[in-house]
């Protein structure tokens, strides 16, 4: 039987100090207060003085409360029984279902050996041209959706979840509004996807320490499913809340802040989560799509900035559309040469023209006379935005490519597109070419 300590020396924010012996770093303890039991984790030790971070927060904890060390680090139950269930950040049921205690696994495990990783090779089709055509999502990729509060990032995430071909969906909600939590639940339920979904939801009203656990729990469970051969899609929303929780806790612990109050290890902390995305050779895979809201729409804010350096690209969601500029899927080159031979050329060519359209639009807004070329670009831009960028467009990749050629043919002469001549000769819509020569 492990010792019980009944004297808490200090309580600062969510951290309590206890004088204890034989404790291990990272070990879990149970703190029993009159408001119930809470888990707490050892985060610092100096001699016999042990600092614990209390998952439910320090509020209401008395210096006379009991602390019982469990002798093991944070664990979560893993089995197929998890499917269809909803839990909170510390793994307790949120859906009135039974508590699961079988087959416990540790969270925050070690990193995958880079030598055991393989090059991603499977495209994940979403039916959204701005993703499929321009920035293809790839199995085992980690991609954030950069957005601002008020944009429909959660609906976009839910739509990708519904349409993506995967075996298990794990939704990690961090600081989620209760309405959004219900939205996800209802959408997945109505779409018939709840039975292959597990939700770990920390809502905005839950204790802040639990926010830190959501990605780790979600990813530990995903890892086990992936090792069993399942293709897992992990959705994390919103990772800015995760970083803010880290900031809050670091500041109360009097750590030296590095940039806008965030702790110096923000990059490493985010990376150790996102890097769990993997394709196991001979087993399944983990793909991570996270939402990162940018405070003040500022991409240089430490959270989106550090995230961008970790993830394999990003989608910018702005004005309800996925922006072609800035949005990038780094892994698209692994798959977009196997789709259709015009895929890459159309992708690059259309974006270059769209960039030129933006310049013309700027000139127009400043009141300059529009040249014939400007007029062509303006027409192109309008068509592109309406027929490609609009989030309501839901077509497979091949159709999107054909549509791309159609749009270009409606606006330009072939040589004006800057595309290679041999592609033009095989893909330029025939009736347009005849019209032009007639």
């Amino acid at each position, binding site marked *: 039987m492990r010792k019980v300590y009944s004297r808490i020396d200090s309580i600062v924010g969510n951290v309590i100090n206890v004088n204890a012996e034989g404790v291990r770093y990272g070990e879990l303890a149970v703190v029993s207060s009159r408001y119930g039991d809470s888990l707490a984790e050892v985060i610092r030790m100096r001699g016999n003085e042990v600092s614990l971070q209390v998952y439910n927060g320090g509020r209401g904890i008395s210096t006379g409360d009991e602390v019982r060390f469990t002798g093991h680090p944070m664990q979560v139950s893993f089995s197929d029984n998890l499917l269809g269930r909803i839990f909170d950040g510390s793994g307790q049921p949120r859906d009135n279902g039974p508590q699961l205690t079988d087959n416990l696994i540790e969270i925050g495990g070690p990193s995958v050996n880079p030598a055991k990783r393989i090059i991603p090779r499977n495209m994940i089709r979403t039916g959204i041209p701005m993703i499929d055509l321009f920035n293809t999502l790839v199995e085992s990729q980690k991609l954030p959706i950069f957005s601002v509060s008020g944009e429909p990032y959660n609906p976009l995430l839910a739509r990708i979840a519904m349409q993506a071909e995967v075996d298990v969906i794990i939704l990690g909600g961090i600081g989620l509004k209760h309405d959004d939590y219900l939205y996800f639940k209802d959408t997945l339920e109505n779409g018939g996807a709840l039975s292959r979904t597990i939700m770990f939801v920390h809502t905005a009203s839950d204790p802040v320490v639990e926010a830190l656990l959501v990605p780790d729990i979600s990813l530990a469970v995903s890892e086990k499913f992936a090792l069993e051969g399942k293709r897992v899609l992990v959705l994390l929303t919103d990772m800015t809340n995760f970083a803010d929780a880290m900031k809050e806790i670091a500041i109360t612990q009097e750590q030296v802040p*590095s940039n806008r109050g965030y702790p110096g290890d923000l990059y*490493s902390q985010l990376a150790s989560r996102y890097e769990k995305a993997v394709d196991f050779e001979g087993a399944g895979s983990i793909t991570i799509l996270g939402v990162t809201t940018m405070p003040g729409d500022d991409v240089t804010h430490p959270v989106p900035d550090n995230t961008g350096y970790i993830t*394999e690209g990003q989608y910018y969601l702005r004005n309800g559309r996925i922006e072609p500029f*800035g949005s990038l899927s780094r892994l698209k080159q692994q798959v977009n040469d196997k789709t259709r031979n015009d895929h890459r050329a159309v992708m690059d060519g259309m974006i*270059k023209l769209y*960039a030129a359209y933006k310049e013309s639009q700027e000139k127009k807004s400043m009141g300059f006379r529009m040249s014939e070329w400007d007029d062509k670009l303006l027409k192109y831009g309008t068509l592109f935005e309406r027929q490609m960028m609009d989030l309501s467009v839901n077509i497979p990749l091949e159709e999107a490519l054909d549509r791309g050629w159609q749009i270009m043919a409606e606006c330009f002469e072939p040589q004006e597109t*800057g595309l290679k001549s041999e592609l033009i000769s095989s893909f330029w819509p025939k009736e347009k070419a005849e019209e032009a020569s007639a």
Partner: protein
Amino acid sequence: MTTGNVVAINGNMVSVSVKGDVSMNEVGYIKVEDKRLKAEVIRVRADQAELQVFEDTKGVSVGDEVEFTAELLAVELGPGLLSTVCDGLQNPLPELAEQAGFFLQRGLYLKALDRSRKWTFTPSVAEGDTLAAGDEVGSVPEGIFRHRIMVPFGWRGSFTVTSIKAEGDYTIDETVAEVTDEDGNTRSITMVFEWPVKRAIDAYAERQRPEEPMVTKVRIIDTFLPVARGGTYCIPGPFGAGKTVLQQITSRNADVDIVIIAACGERAGEVVETLREFPELIDPKTGKSLMERTVIICNTSSMPVAAREASVYTAVTIAEYYRQMGLNVLLLADSTSRWAQAMREMSGRLEEIPGEEAFPAYLESVIAAFYERAGVVRLRNGETGSVTIGGTVSPAGGNFEEPVTQATLKVVGAFHGLSRARSDARKYPSIDPMDSWSKYPSLVDLQMVEYARDILEKGDEVGQMMKVVGEEGTALADYILFQKGEFLDAVYLQQNAFDPVDAAVGVDRQRHVFDILFRILGSKLRIDSKEKARTFFYNLRQKFIDYNGAEWESDDFNSLESEIVKMLEDVSDGLEPNAEQAYNKRGSNA
């Protein structure tokens, strides 16, 4: 052996009460359950030492025993390093995977070099010869290279050979020579020895000025922003601007003997691409797989932070080792910012007074010392070898005013700044031709390059002005200048890394194509309207892009070239005076 006990734990920093002597940067092992976690001493105060642990510290307990090794953090140097993939502490990753499976297991350390493999040793000294540190005693073939077996670099004084093994197959641990030092003590030389990573190898005659270009086959670099062998350069850029792709392209095409890739705190996926693709890619120069000239040190972002700091030193030490064999080595470090951040994390735990953006005050001197390990050296046998260092920087918010970028710019010889505006417009490689600079000599004639750069700058100025006054407010001559600038950018500065031909452009082709490009840029054009100017340049650009995609000196290439020349001649009135001057004098400044 000095021992101690853990007294405090804070993340990956552990305080130890030490019984006996301990030295700074000494390696110690913390015994946890049945494992030994490697750690490095980073501060000593009276009988308490602070150690940064290269592993996750979960499960460490106050009172746990610590053993000190009395050795600094070191790497093994010997034949067999090439084509290995190891972590920041030189543990071979494929072998770790064999033992531990998919995941890295803490406390598992393996020797970097294969102990059972036999190498064919050929002696090059005889009994009675006098040697000093770094001198050759023999050699073994390692892939396409002649791997020199040397007197360990740390040995002081001169040594007399008392015995030397005959030609034959030996493992790296077998003694191949015995020598006596000045005091008459006998020492034996094997094919492997250790060297502390944080000390530069200095067993050479003199350091020379880097002058010979290191061809990367990237046009914008070789022509406009060249790098010299033995030089240093940095690639700062916001995320998504293509730093890593540029590094990967360089690692494939760079005209050097050996490439060391230090993936420091970046994505594991990127290393995997190199790992899986290099064995299949053939190096055109040697006809062997690229992997045979490559060493990968990879400490990716989710691997323990402290080992990240060690990884850049491990990499540069291996680079210096091969330089000692008279080879040209390129070290690509991606990214040095992650290394700086690792220093910042540790500095925070040590509760040091923070400098700018909480980076430690010694950041600049540490970065400078690292880049200074690059250089061309003349070895004592008269041969030269070089270490070129190219480091990426990931500035917070893409803002180059931050401490790591600034500290790096102070010490490098070339700056390839990537721009978000160019990468957003899909203009790759997204090196900003205006802001970037290089102090090294170019592949092509300097005056011609200056002329082209001038067109680019003036064209850009016109472009900026046009945004304000509009196309109609711009004079025809200026408009043509603008089109020339855009043309230069589109067909020369931009390069399609995914086109099999355009991806790597050799020296001859660069010189040849630049010549034609120069004639276009320098021509007085008989064009009487902006509309015609635009059409002309669009058509020309189209041809030129096809031309760039055509195999060097193929029929296609030649016919496209004559078409381009014809298009130019149709409207050209010859070269502008100062272009003509530069063109006629070409070669005299190359």
